[in-house]
């Protein structure tokens, strides 16, 4: 019986029915995953070698020209730099803020559940809706500027989506609004997982609060923090919905992200070959980052990293 073959400590020779069970159970998930997740990446590599508008047959083989074009395009490097800017700001501002709020919520006081529910609320609101909402609130004659005017802070008003030097900051604010709650919840769970005894012992030993935070909380929170940072970076590299719902990459491509750039050139301008090259580059960037991160940062808690992407 197949039962004999399973749930035993060491691998044993399987009966045919045991193998059939394994195959049968794995097949649907594996098939969907291979065909719809992995195969497209492989195809993208192939398409990226052609000058192709997506309509005609694939005949115009141009080798790596699309990649050369991408790196020669200031728009591509611009888009990449915007992604990196979001990554940098997320690490410098969003994650520390999420940590601070997680610490805040880990205290016991009346109302903290309510606060937790509210802080996390934006996570369930779609990017598109978030984007449209803030796109309107932050118009030149939108609510935010009007509030600033009404309280006499005229100097702070901006053309939030139109000013070349401000637009990515605005974008980052909207992204943070939507996602800080997610990181906060991750970190909160990590905090609650730190054994009480450790902290108590530290405090008894005369640790100051800051020292305890610095030398105990942060290190023990390490795995969760690393996961949070990992997800933040991967998330920042694939921003699309919010850009689509707000600036569509404008003005003059000052808020393009890689994913939006790929959509713009691949689909809207019908350069499917070039768009595929961008897709491959995006994948390589994500993959490269993940490998390096896993190798040097996450090596100790890989399991933690993967188990908690939960999106």
């Amino acid at each position, binding site marked *: 019986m197949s039962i004999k073959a399973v749930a035993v400590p060491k691998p044993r020779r399987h009966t045919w029915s045991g193998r059939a069970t394994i195959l049968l159970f794995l097949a649907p998930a594996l098939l969907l995953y291979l065909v719809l*997740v992995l195969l497209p990446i492989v195809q993208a590599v192939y*398409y990226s070698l052609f000058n192709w508008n997506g309509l005609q047959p694939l005949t115009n083989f141009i080798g790596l020209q699309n990649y050369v074009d991408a790196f020669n395009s200031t728009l591509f490097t611009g888009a990449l730099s915007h992604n990196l800017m979001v990554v940098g700001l997320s690490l410098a501002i969003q994650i520390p803020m999420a940590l601070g709020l997680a610490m805040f919520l880990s205290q016991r006081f009346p109302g*903290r559940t309510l606060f937790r529910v509210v802080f996390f*609320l934006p996570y*369930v609101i779609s*990017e598109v809706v978030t984007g449209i909402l803030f796109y309107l609130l932050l118009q030149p004659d939108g609510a935010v500027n009007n509030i600033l005017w009404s309280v006499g802070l005229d100097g702070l008003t901006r053309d939030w989506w139109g000013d070349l030097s401000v637009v990515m900051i605005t974008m980052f604010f909207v992204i943070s609004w939507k996602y800080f709650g997610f990181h906060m919840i991750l970190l909160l769970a990590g905090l609650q997982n730190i054994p009480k005894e450790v902290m108590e012992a530290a405090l008894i030993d005369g640790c100051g609060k800051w020292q305890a935070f610095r030398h105990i909380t942060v290190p023990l929170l390490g795995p969760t923090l690393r996961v949070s940072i990992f997800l933040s970076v991967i998330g920042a590299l694939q921003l699309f919905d919010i850009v689509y719902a707000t600036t569509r990459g404008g003005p003059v491509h000052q808020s393009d992200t890689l994913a939006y750039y790929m959509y713009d050139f691949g689909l809207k301008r019908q350069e499917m070959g070039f768009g595929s090259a961008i897709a491959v580059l995006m*994948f390589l960037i*994500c993959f490269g980052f993940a490998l390096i991160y896993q190798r040097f940062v996450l090596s100790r808690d890989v399991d933690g990293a993967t188990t908690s*992407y939960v999106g």
Partner: protein
Amino acid sequence: MTATTKPFDDTQGLAIAVPKKHKKQTKFGVFLSYLPLWLIGIAVSSVIVVPLAYAVFDGFKEQGQVAGNAALLPEKWIFSNYGDLITSPVFWRQVLNSVVIGLLTVGLVVVCASLAAFVLARLKFRGREVVYTLFTLGLLFPAAVAILPLFILLRTLGLTNNPLGVVLPQAAFSMPMTIIILRPFFQSIPPELEDAAKIDGCSTFGFFWRILLPLSKPALATVSVLAIVGSWNAFFIPLLVFGNADQWTLPLGVMNFSTEHTSNWASILAFTTLSMIPAVLFYMVAERQIVSGLTAGSVKG
């Protein structure tokens, strides 16, 4: 503040002022000690709530009263913005589409992922970890990366303008995360139970179906909730697959509405509000599942 024995949670709030002496405090004193915390909480909450409140109330304003106006509450309450939408079959059509797509996605991903997670958790075979790693790799394949070739693939399969063209990829892309949540849960079910089942003459599938799945309800609830939230909010895949307005889900509908009525902010925000309501209500009901799902892994880590 060193050698006191405070409740654990309080000692964690190092970055923030913490109420110090809990004992021997008057009611007012207790209130006062919580005050800084509440102020911080209210300040952060208002950053979240105020924009949402603007969306809700702007929907009641007259067209033309939204732009150039700092007031949150309408001068004159107009109900037609919401009314027109609620009475429009198009809106309900999109709600229905979102629901159907969401349920199909959840059904598919939960069935496939729990079967796979079961094998990966409880059966030993050569290549098991390879398969598992292959799935975890999927976390690095955001839909955005694969979207162009995926689109071409769906076109080849004749799945554009077909609900399956959205359901299948969505299920595929949430497969890794679902398996990753389910596997440790399945692993944690004691082997004794399985032995007992074996003695009672259960087949592998019998154990899976009659014992493991019922015991895993919390984990299944979690992954279902996460999948449905993901599907409800999804935009990129439906954008490419559905051209036909009859098939649009809510995010597409809202987006299209807002580009079509650029000047009518009141109606756009009314639509935005209405499309948020189901997600927010669902969140209120399922907050526990969502939060526990998101944190499942890091607790383990």
